[in-house]
């Protein structure tokens, strides 16, 4: 008969060694993972914005906004600056504001939230969209990530709130995906919510408006 102490000691030892190992690995990987996430987001920012000559990451603004409804601007905590709000990445060309990028999220995806990065120019027209996070069905709803598999991604570019931002099935002009209407529809709604927030709040917000006036800092 093995005493209960031995059982406890063995289990504690196994757990302790494993915890130590993972803690070590975490110190190695954590900065790399953080950098990968930032790089990925900036890559997407670059894709949705028109050509620029500043550093959108350094010039980014955190705008305090409330998020309501099923599709809305994504409110997140900026780790580096420690403030919460919508992170807006501005793009400047020759000192002139040419576009702003920010994340939008919707709960109306087929499985889980869909996060988009939306680029908008000062006139309120879409300059680009990229899906940064989703859990749609691979090979079906997941086709929204690429314009090769979903023509609607390109069709949305250039549209303003005054244009049709609905899938054809809902009486709009945007292509849906055969067999998967839910995902493109969710994207359209998110884009609409993003443009709406931009027109109503972000455009006039003191933080972003001030940057727009003073021009590029870099």
């Amino acid at each position, binding site marked *: 008969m*093995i005493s209960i102490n031995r059982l406890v000691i063995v289990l504690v030892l*196994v757990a302790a060694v494993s915890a130590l190992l*993972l803690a070590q690995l975490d110190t*190695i*990987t954590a900065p790399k*993972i953080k950098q990968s996430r930032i790089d990925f987001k900036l890559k997407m920012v670059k894709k949705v914005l028109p050509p620029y000559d500043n550093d959108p990451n350094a010039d980014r603004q955190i705008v305090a906004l409330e998020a309501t409804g099923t599709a809305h601007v994504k409110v997140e905590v900026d780790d580096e600056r420690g403030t919460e709000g919508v992170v807006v990445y501005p793009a400047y060309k020759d000192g002139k504001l040419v576009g702003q990028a920010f994340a939008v999220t919707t709960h109306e995806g087929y499985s889980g939230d869909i996060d988009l990065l939306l680029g908008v120019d000062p006139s309120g027209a879409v300059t680009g969209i990229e899906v940064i996070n989703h859990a749609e069905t*691979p090979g*079906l709803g997941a086709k929204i990530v690429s314009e090769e598999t979903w023509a609607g991604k390109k069709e949305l570019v250039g549209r303003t709130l005054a244009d049709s931002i609905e899938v054809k099935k809902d009486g709009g002009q945007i292509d849906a995906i055969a067999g998967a209407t839910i995902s493109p529809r969710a994207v359209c709604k998110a884009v609409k919510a993003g443009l709406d927030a931009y027109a109503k709040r972000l455009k006039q917000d003191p933080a972003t408006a001030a940057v727009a006036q003073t021009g590029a800092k870099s």
Partner: protein
Amino acid sequence: MNYGEVFTKGLWKDNPVLRMMLGMCPVLGVSTSAINGFGMGAATLFVLLGSNIAVAVLKGYIPAQVRIPAYIIIIATFVTVVDMSMAAWFFDLYLTLGLFIPLIVVNCIILGRAEGFASKNTLSASVIDALGMGIGFTLAITTLGACRELLGNGSVFDVQILGSWYPPALVMILPPGAFLMLGFLAAGMRRIDLVFAQRERVVAASRRAQALKLATGGAPEPAAPGMDAVSG
């Protein structure tokens, strides 16, 4: 111990997915495309190898009463290692597979091999067993993913194979398709086994008949004992 057999049994005879029907949760969930299946298989292979090695080394020190929680901690540790390493060094792959990595913890193949093999066998045999089972799992889930992708999307490994004339059977990449295709593959595997067994029986029977012929010195042929097998 015959290492060759330890290795090959995971590939075919005791294939974890198509024979033992283990680890169904990741198999059904992730096999929507060939590349997803392969990534999941490779990650599982690594965890299986790590846990089999750790369990084979530690088996003498872990009392039987706490072996299951100890194995679970070991497996969870390796899964976390895969999760963190993939996020740090293969971020693109992590974006598509990251969601499924934590699922490996509950894959019963890994606990099954730790409990059923590594805890009773030597380190080298456990490594061979992990490789055989892991590769068998990877092959099965990749095949399943490739078949579902082909029928449901007309492509394999994202390469379009079937032209626009083919109307994709969407059901194959939706959850029901996983069950359907798994059934077909498992049935197909048994069919192949049956054909081979049949052929072996035929060969054995004709050998017996020949031997009988020699023994009786070419006398009128009696009913060969293997005849039933040949016709059946």
